[in-house]
């Protein structure tokens, strides 16, 4: 089984300029354990809480 059959779209993401407070609120609102961080639509990292 390949990963592409399981991943959900769209992923909840944050722009790298988003304040930590807002990013945390976004994660809580959507109930996600990890927040991919994008810079100009390129994945530059992820944050987990």
């Amino acid at each position, binding site marked *: 089984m*390949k*990963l*592409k059959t399981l991943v959900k779209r769209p992923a909840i*993401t944050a722009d790298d*300029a988003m304040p*930590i407070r807002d990013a945390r609120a976004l994660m809580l609102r959507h109930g996600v*354990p990890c927040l991919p961080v994008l810079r100009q639509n390129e994945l530059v990292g*992820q944050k987990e809480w």
Partner: protein
Amino acid sequence: MVGGRLAQTPIGDVLAGGVTAVGPRTPLIEGIRLMRARRLAALPVVRGDELLGVLTEKDLLGLLAEVADGSS
């Protein structure tokens, strides 16, 4: 509770170095092994620079439930 100046800091400023991600054709078992090795709760799936989605522990639990039910 995060407050004060830290709360307003851009999240891009507090990222640890490096990105752990896999491609969409990566076998599931490799993704699971990577999540365990790096202690990740979620694993981004990318194609080039494009984020396709995120595989989470919740997704894996759902798959396990389907397998246990015999529906997968």
